[in-house]
């Protein structure tokens, strides 16, 4: 067995699961062999981007329908960490959501910008009747 770490979990589209998935993301960072960076910071960032991505999937893509599920796949090897968040909704326009600079006193709109700032690559596309937000973080 190599150093690959993988998690695949499906949750109902409800915000009460945010903390649980965030903690799984944090714990995965401590399971990464050979990561030389600041683990505490990376753990916080994964918790954050997973929380933001799942909140987007629940609120914007699934339109708060609790019967629509969210699937989360996280895989990591020594080079990179890939997180995929699948929604069953009508999707959203990633470019539009991330296009404008958020006004300093805006109450919403920072989620996608936070993800973009903390991840190296972010894409949102259609995949087998679902949508997937794919986020990649290089580990060195």
């Amino acid at each position, binding site marked *: 067995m190599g150093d690959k770490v993988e998690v695949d979990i499906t949750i109902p589209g409800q*915000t*009460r699961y*945010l*903390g649980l998935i*965030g903690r799984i993301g944090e714990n995965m960072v401590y399971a990464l062999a050979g990561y030389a960076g600041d683990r*505490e*910071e990376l753990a*916080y960032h994964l*918790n*954050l981007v997973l*929380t*933001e991505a799942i*909140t987007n999937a*629940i*609120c914007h893509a699934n339109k708060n329908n609790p019967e629509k599920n969210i699937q989360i796949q996280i895989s990591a090897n020594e080079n990179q960490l890939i997180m995929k968040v699948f929604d069953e909704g009508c999707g959203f326009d990633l470019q539009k959501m991330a296009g404008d600079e*958020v006004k*300093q*006193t*805006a*109450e*919403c*709109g*920072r*989620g996608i*910008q*936070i993800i973009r*700032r*903390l991840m190296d690559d972010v894409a949102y596309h259609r995949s087998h009747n679902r949508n997937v937000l794919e986020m990649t973080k290089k580990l060195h």
Partner: protein
Amino acid sequence: MQLETKEHGDIVIIDVKEERMDAHNSGTFKEQMLALFDEGRCRLIINLSNVRFVDSSGLGALVSGFKNASARDGNLKLCGLQPQVRSMFELTRLHRVFEIFTTVEEAQESF
């Protein structure tokens, strides 16, 4: 959202008794602050010393409180930020919007 509220004169100190502020509890936090504004209390200190994690929804709730307090000639100040929480304010540049103090006492003296 678990909050502990104390009053010192016309200043209300809100101690957030949650480890996380996210989309699950930030809506109720906003409503709890709005209830204070409706009672005419608009000078707030939010003590975040128990909060280990805040996302964009939590930040949005604080911005909402700040704007509501300012619109009523009051203010909303923050204190007790843990390092990772503080980094969230810097990442989103919200540290330029809020007055942030180390302790409740310092925040109180600034009013």
